[in-house]
């Protein structure tokens, strides 16, 4: 009974966190879905989003949620730049080439970030209050982050299904050659998709910074979680990523009720392997 209570206490936290994890993973899986590129610079871009919040709130005194707008624009432009400089030339090469290209970008960002920001942990001293829900404490920062994540997911859905560029993205993801034959500027669409993916990563980082400490190396663990979530939700399925994020968040919330916290990554990655073996297309189906 005591553990059941503990489970109920921890569950809301896990769900709220899951939305943010899902948003981060959505960026990774969108890029994979559209251009079959595994973006290994995903983690450092999440970290840059975290520093975005730090500079906007701690240095400039602007509300971190207002600061999401410049962070999103920065993420979008940075993604387009990375695509043009590092990815475009290897987009048709074997997967290893694009993997190495994005890994190089990862190392460049970490190197520059370490030189400029060190690897010391940073904190954003922001408090959005909280309230009790039964025995659970709901923190304002996590609740708002989950709502923003849902908003971005809804926005992405509308963009992909209701706008012309979104439809172009889906067309290029489906069959790039056919899309080009229909006059779709595939290079621009690929650059836009990469930009959207990095934008989602940066925004998720900016949200995470409102409740967790971070350093330039902090994105690595969220990148790994994004892989697990991507596989759970189906790599290439951005909406599935949100559900994958929820599954992971709930697991992180409830596992410590029964086992030591250090078991969380063991179980997460065991699940990752099991899903790959049993249902490689993910729980919610992936791009065929």
């Amino acid at each position, binding site marked *: 009974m*005591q553990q059941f*209570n*503990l489970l109920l*206490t*921890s569950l809301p*936290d*896990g769900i709220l*966190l899951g939305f943010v994890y899902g948003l981060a993973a959505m960026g990774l899986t969108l890029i994979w879905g559209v251009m079959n590129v595994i973006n290994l610079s995903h983690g450092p871009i999440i970290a840059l989003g975290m520093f975005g919040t730090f500079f906007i709130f701690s240095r400039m005194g602007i509300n971190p949620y207002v600061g999401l707008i410049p962070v999103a624009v920065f993420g979008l432009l940075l993604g387009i730049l990375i695509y043009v400089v590092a990815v475009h030339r290897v987009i048709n090469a074997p997967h290893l080439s694009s993997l190495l290209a994005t890994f190089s970008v990862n190392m460049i960002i970490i190197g520059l970030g*370490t030189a400029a920001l*060190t*690897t*010391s*942990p940073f*904190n954003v*001293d922001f*408090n959005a209050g*909280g309230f009790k829900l039964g025995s*659970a*404490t709901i*923190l304002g920062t996590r609740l708002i982050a989950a709502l923003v994540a849902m908003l971005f997911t809804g926005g992405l859905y509308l963009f992909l299904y209701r706008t012309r560029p979104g439809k172009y993205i889906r067309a290029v993801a489906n069959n790039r050659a056919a899309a080009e034959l229909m006059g779709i500027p595939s290079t621009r669409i690929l650059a836009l998709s990469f930009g959207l993916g990095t934008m989602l990563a940066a925004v998720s980082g900016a949200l995470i910074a409102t*409740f*967790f*400490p971070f*350093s330039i*190396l*902090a994105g690595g*663990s969220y990148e790994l979680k994004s892989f697990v979530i991507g596989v759970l939700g189906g790599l290439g399925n951005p909406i599935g990523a949100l559900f994958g994020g929820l599954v992971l968040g709930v697991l*992180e*919330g409830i*596992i*410590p*009720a029964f086992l*030591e*916290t*250090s078991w*969380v*990554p063991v179980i997460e990655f065991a699940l990752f392997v099991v899903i790959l073996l049993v249902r490689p297309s993910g729980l919610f189906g992936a791009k065929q």
Partner: protein
Amino acid sequence: MKRKFLNVLGLLLVAAMLLTACGPAATEPPPPAATEAPAATQAPVATEPPAPVEKTITIGFTSSLTGSQEVSSKRQVAGFNLWMNQVNEAGGIALGDGSTVKFAAVTYDDESNKERVQELYTRLVTEDNADFLISPYSSGLTAAASIVAEQNGKIMITAGAAEDDAYKTGNTGLFQLYTPGSLYLISTVDMLKTLDPEAKVAIVHENDKFSTSVVEGLKPYLESQGFEIVLEEGYATETTDFGPVINKLVDSGATVLLGGGHYPDGSTFARQLYERKAGLKFISLLVAPADSKFPELGDAALGVSTSSQWELKATHTEEEAAALGIPWYGPTGEDFAAAYEAATTEKPTYHVAGGYTAGLILQKAIENADSVDPEKVKAALEAMDIFTFYGGIKFDTSPEAHGLQTSHQMVVAQWQKNDAGELVRQVIWPADVATADPLYPVPAP
């Protein structure tokens, strides 16, 4: 024609001079008296004392310029560098044979990574020919470095490494500066015993060598003092979400939390305890609250305590050494702090003091040995029993725990607010050196 003749003549003359010059040296060395003659005739040179021979000793260590140990490691290195600069600027250590010893440091960034530590300490020993080694910061990295030091027969002063095990595996070249991990929280428990003997204790700690070693010493001591341990939980080093752990903590009914690990996790844990209004009466975390960055947490830092290896406010003094009958060595705590503040504009933490004292110990051992011969220095370290601003320094010399620190003691420090409402770290235990009463229970958020 004339020019050609002159050239040939010149060549012949040079050849003749060379033959004359080389001939006797090749067959018969010049008599010693002949070479000493000019000295005998030049009075000023003969009376000038011989210039002292200056030896430069290489000290090798790695520092974590990046990674999880960065904050504390940089402070340790800053302390060590202060010591080295002071000794070198003072002309080095004078030995009985008239020579002086100065120091040069060779250091690399270990990235807080054990594999890098082993690779780099091997390089320090084999390529950089380091004469003595200082440990990296943290018990985990030091354990990795100690293997290389021991395999190569090098003396390593272990600063910033409190875990006990490395000294209990037959190593003979390690000398520990910090109070061992197993004794880390003993002072805190003694204080709790006077404040609230009925406290229910939760132990939540990082799953690393150092924190685990602290808990191994803490648990039996808590039990022997009659405290009830209601929760014991480990967490991974990279943990950022302490929500589930805090839920467990609250659910356990604990009133006191003892635990933590290092700076990144400890500062995060403290912040989330505050945000979630965990309702604890007392919080003691390892390492993080001892750092001057900790007040960046704002009100979340208020009331958080730590076991500290050294605090300026309770620095050890010559009078204390005299009362204990132990010889004093080195600068006073105030002089050390003033020199550090002049160099960096920051107040020194115990990590800085540890780095400085690591050098100070080596200096004392070289002075006592009157040599830089590693065997003689090692014997001097084994015989050392001194008192510094940092506290007592004496090493276990038994084969079972060679090099373990046996003299140094901890104090308990707590973040409190001063009259101006600023967060300051006060020493709250032992009572005879306390600068403020313990804040117990800590104010509710």
